């Protein structure tokens, strides 16, 4: 037999490439050899979330394409008056940089987690949470500004009424994701700080042994929130 069936031992040592895909899925065992169940489940959740946000963005595309009324110009709508002149889209640009920075600190937190550096991991996760909270704060400012200018889910002063509905729905859902992420970052950072993953302390909810992989799984969620923002930034704010 060219490729002996692997039943035990080190995962991820089977064939590679397309043959590897076939071997992994037909192995009659866990299909994802190198990813733990926790990581695989987070990925599958993120896949489902991709479809949720995909549907939102498609709904927005459909509304924008099918209205005969002119679409408000996001470049002007989201401009801020700074130093005597209107700077287009500046708040959104700052929010983008803040979220990307939080992704950077999160990636480094994962790295320090696997080096078992409790202190750095917890600090970087808290920094990520602070940047995330800052993002949500700026979003709250943006919502307040638009609402005082008369934007509602059913009308706005500049054009197609669908602008308000899609704006509140898409950015609202994304902001909710960021907020949930911040809460979970704080929870996992506390566990790291307390040393739960060094002594394999069992979780209060799942009763499973804590491992530093929890930091990486948390990171997957956080990077996904950043990833969704990349698409929202491109399609809603820049298009």
């Amino acid at each position, binding site marked *: 037999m060219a490729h002996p069936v692997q039943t035990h031992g080190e995962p991820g040592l089977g064939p*590679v*490439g*397309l043959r*590897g*895909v076939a071997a*992994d*899925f037909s192995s009659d065992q866990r*299909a*994802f*050899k*190198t*990813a733990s169940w926790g990581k695989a489940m987070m*990925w*599958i959740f*993120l*896949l489902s979330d*991709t*479809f949720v946000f*995909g*549907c939102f963005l*498609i709904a927005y*595309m*459909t509304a924008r*394409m*099918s*209205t*005969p*009324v002119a679409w408000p110009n996001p*470049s002007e709508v989201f401009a801020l008056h700074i130093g005597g002149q209107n700077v*287009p*889209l500046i708040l959104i*640009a700052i929010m*983008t940089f803040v979220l*990307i*920075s939080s*992704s*950077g600190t*999160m*990636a*480094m937190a*994962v*790295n320090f987690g*696997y*080096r*078992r550096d409790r202190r750095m991991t917890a600090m970087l996760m808290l920094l990520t949470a602070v940047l995330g909270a800052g993002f949500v704060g700026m979003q709250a400012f943006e919502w307040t500004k638009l609402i005082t200018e008369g934007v509602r889910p059913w009308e706005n002063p500049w054009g197609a009424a669908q602008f308000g509905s899609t704006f509140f729905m898409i950015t609202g859902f994304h902001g909710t994701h960021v907020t949930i992420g911040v809460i979970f970052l704080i929870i996992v950072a506390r566990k790291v700080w307390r040393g739960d993953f060094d002594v394999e302390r069992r979780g209060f909810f799942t009763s499973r042994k804590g491992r*530093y*992989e929890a930091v*990486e799984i948390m*990171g997957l969620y956080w*990077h*996904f929130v*950043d*990833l969704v923002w*990349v*698409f929202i*930034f*491109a399609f809603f*704010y*820049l*298009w």
Partner: protein
Amino acid sequence: MSETTAHAQSQTVHAQTHTGQQHPIRLYLFVWGLLFVLSAFSYMVDYLGVQGYLRWTLILVFMMLKAGLIVAVFMHMAWERLALVYAILLPPLLVLVFVALMVSEADYTIFTRLAFFGAGP
């Protein structure tokens, strides 16, 4: 003897600490910088007022580059086995089919609106 056992144990622990995704910090900082530059480029597209097909092309190119970097490096997809990569990255392509369906639907809606209600509200 006990020393040997302790040594073996420390080696096991050492091996365990290096499971999972271990990559140099420099790589993350490099990607972080790239994402900053790409975001700045995306913003410049709007700031400089590029319009038309060039605008849409640039927006899509910078978007896909940023998304690719985040998924491949920050989310470690580049180091996962192909089975997971395909299971997660291929299904979203179906969203493109949905997009095609809704483009055709939206074209039909705007056509009927213009045909029956005139050019404006």
